[in-house]
């Protein structure tokens, strides 16, 4: 091979490798995006069927119940306008509490219950997961807020 051919074959090989790599990355990226929805959107049926997504809002006070196995919990997630029942089996994070913000990831069952595979509640007491804060801010902006006692802190 002449040096010229050699250089071209190298550049060609490099481009092919980069192309394959980018295709792989973008494909993986596309199929692993998790979208976020508010309880209002869930109630309005705007969520994808049979696909995993995230939902955020306030854990409504007094709704947390535990089954006798000590692990399966039921609670209601709300953005002060709409309510979505959630089921989760597992140990809840330390900062999960009634009346506090939380984010859950999972799928919507055919009965309209959100079956969570993961529940997130992070950082300190005053911290509200941004998604949860936004869900409530949106509901508030829509002018349908029923309760005035909630303070939305971003």
């Amino acid at each position, binding site marked *: 091979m002449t*040096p010229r051919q*050699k250089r071209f*074959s*190298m550049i060609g*090989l*490099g481009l092919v*490798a*980069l192309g394959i*790599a*980018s295709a*792989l*990355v973008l494909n*993986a*990226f596309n199929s*692993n*995006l*998790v*979208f*976020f929805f508010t309880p209002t959107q869930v109630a309005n049926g705007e969520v994808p069927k049979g696909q995993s997504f*995230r939902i955020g809002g306030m854990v409504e006070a007094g709704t947390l119940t*535990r089954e006798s*196995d*000590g*692990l399966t919990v039921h609670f209601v997630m709300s953005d002060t306008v709409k309510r979505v029942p959630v089921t989760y*089996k*597992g*140990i*809840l994070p*330390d*900062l999960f509490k009634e009346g506090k913000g939380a984010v859950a990831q999972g799928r919507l069952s055919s009965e309209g219950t959100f079956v969570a595979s993961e529940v997130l509640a*992070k*950082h*300190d*007491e005053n*911290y509200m997961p*941004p*998604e949860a*804060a*936004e869900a409530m801010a949106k509901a508030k902006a829509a002018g349908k807020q029923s309760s005035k006692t909630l303070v939305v802190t*971003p």
Partner: protein
Amino acid sequence: MIPEIGQFALILALCVAAVQGTVPIYGAASGNASLMAVAKPAARGQFLLVLIAFCCLGYAFAQKDFSVLYVAANANSKLPLHYRLAAIWGAHEGSLLLWTFILTLWMMAVTLFSKHLPEAMRARILGVMGLVSLGFLLFMLTVSNPFERLIPAAPDGRDLNPLLQDPGMVMHPPMLYMGYVGFSVAFAFAIAALLGGNLDAAWARWSRPWTTVAWCFLTVGIALGSGWAYYELGWGGWWFWDPVENASFMPWLAGTALIHSLAVTDKRGGFKVWTVLLAILAFSLSLLGTFLVRSGVLTSVHAFATDPKRGLFILVFLAIVIGGSLLLYAWRAPRVGLGGGFDLVSREAMLLANNVLLVVAMGSVLLGTLYPLFLDALGLGKISVGPPYFDTVFVPLMTPAIFLMGIGPLAQWKKASVPSLAMQLRWAFGASVVTALLLPFVLGKWTPLLSLGLLLALWIVTTAVINVRERLTHLEGAGLLSRLASVPRSYWGMILAHCGIAVFIVGVTMVKGFEVEQDLRMNVGESATIGGYTFQFDGAKDFVGPNYIAARGTFRVTKDGREVTIMYPEKRRYMVQSQTMTEAAIDSGLLRDLYVSLGEPLDAGAWSVRLYHKPFIDWIWGGCLIMALGGVLAITDRRYRLAWRREQEAAPAVSQPVGAPIV
């Protein structure tokens, strides 16, 4: 009074940094030796001033001076002294001070170990570092001041986030920052080379030990953080592909690529332009990482809105540093030259492939980390990118890189022959494939990923053995010992670091393949068996810690009827922030970890409990430590010291300024 001294020291440091960032660079450009000579005392002076500021903040924490806002926000009178001192870097303002302090520490190191450098080079390096430091000091003094007063003083502080009250967290940020900031030296070398227009093998040899040291610190820092997450977060994971973790992983990937590319520039004079670009990239990513994590951009994009000045400053600073250095690169890189050519099958080509793979991997992490932020900032909706994305991307990207890792060190520079490489490696390949296919059956379970992981680890080790044998047979010398002694340390460093990767891969593969996790309800006296170990729950008792109250469970662990250990996981409640924390109990071992953590109290003394059996998990961090040790071994190589000495002898007398020490 003391905080004001700290503040004053920072202001003085800012002035010194302004001088250090301009005068020596101008001096180097105009060939004025006395202006260049300003760099060294300025750097040392700055180190001293920032050290004073750092000590002042430490003093304020030690004395519980709650009239300082930062102290009041991050400490409490009940917080033990060692955590009060660690609280210096517990939040945004203080960690920036730590960053700046470490930067001046590296500057100090450069003034101490740069006697062999040409004067102009040293002046430019210190000048560039001075400019970086100028940016950070300006940021601290304008919008992020750790010495800001709180008047009237708070009666007591808000306490350190309980998650950070842990020995791992005390060490993790300084280690990580030593790594992040260490790349500033490589960056300064690169910018200095661009300014000076000469980038030769000597330049690469000077930068190599600095880059490797930074990389070692970063490796240990990331491992510490991962270990901390494992035992402190209470759910037993060691890597979550969390944006905060990604922020530290990206500079690591770029730094790893840089180390390999520097080797080519050093040994063969090749990849010059690419090396410079990687040095810029590694440091830019370090800056991005620091700001992403510490400015609160990641936990919430709205943090920008709460303090728009801070966000704006960060964006402008990043734009100046990254944009400026890339502009300089575009302008000056053509002068640097490309270096010698090489064949399609050669060590250079393999290192190039390794570099491309590492950079693509880095790019994929960057995409997964920043894309959700951009989308949110533009108001296009909220998304998150989960661990499955990173897992799917990393396995296919790293597999060829690791395959090449076995061949590369055996291949010749410039032109290697495929048949002879195949001859050398056929046993390694055969043995790895057969063992990797059969071993999982012996262990009791076969999955493709299990075999692949074991194959990669075995491939690294077997090729390393062949490599060492090959190296020894080609050396002259009578006995094996004398031949062993004549192999340079940098070579052993490389072999050791590569074997560290193998150990790491074994850990990851075995944990992914064989870990057993069980969440269950346990009544007092009840027992459960996982992974051959029986855990008996003897109930939980309350007790009081210095700044928390806790429930402490007792678990008696037996295997085949023999008692193995007793484990005491805790559920703590930190009073000041009224925050609950899970302290897992872990019984570590070479071949497995037992992991117990308490969930929630249920009726009649029963608890929900997590029981994990994690085989080989400690190999993950062990592998990281071995990698770092390999790096340390490499920098102790004689060739760096010899090169320095030769350089001094050859250095023309003109470049020595009047009064500079001639050693």
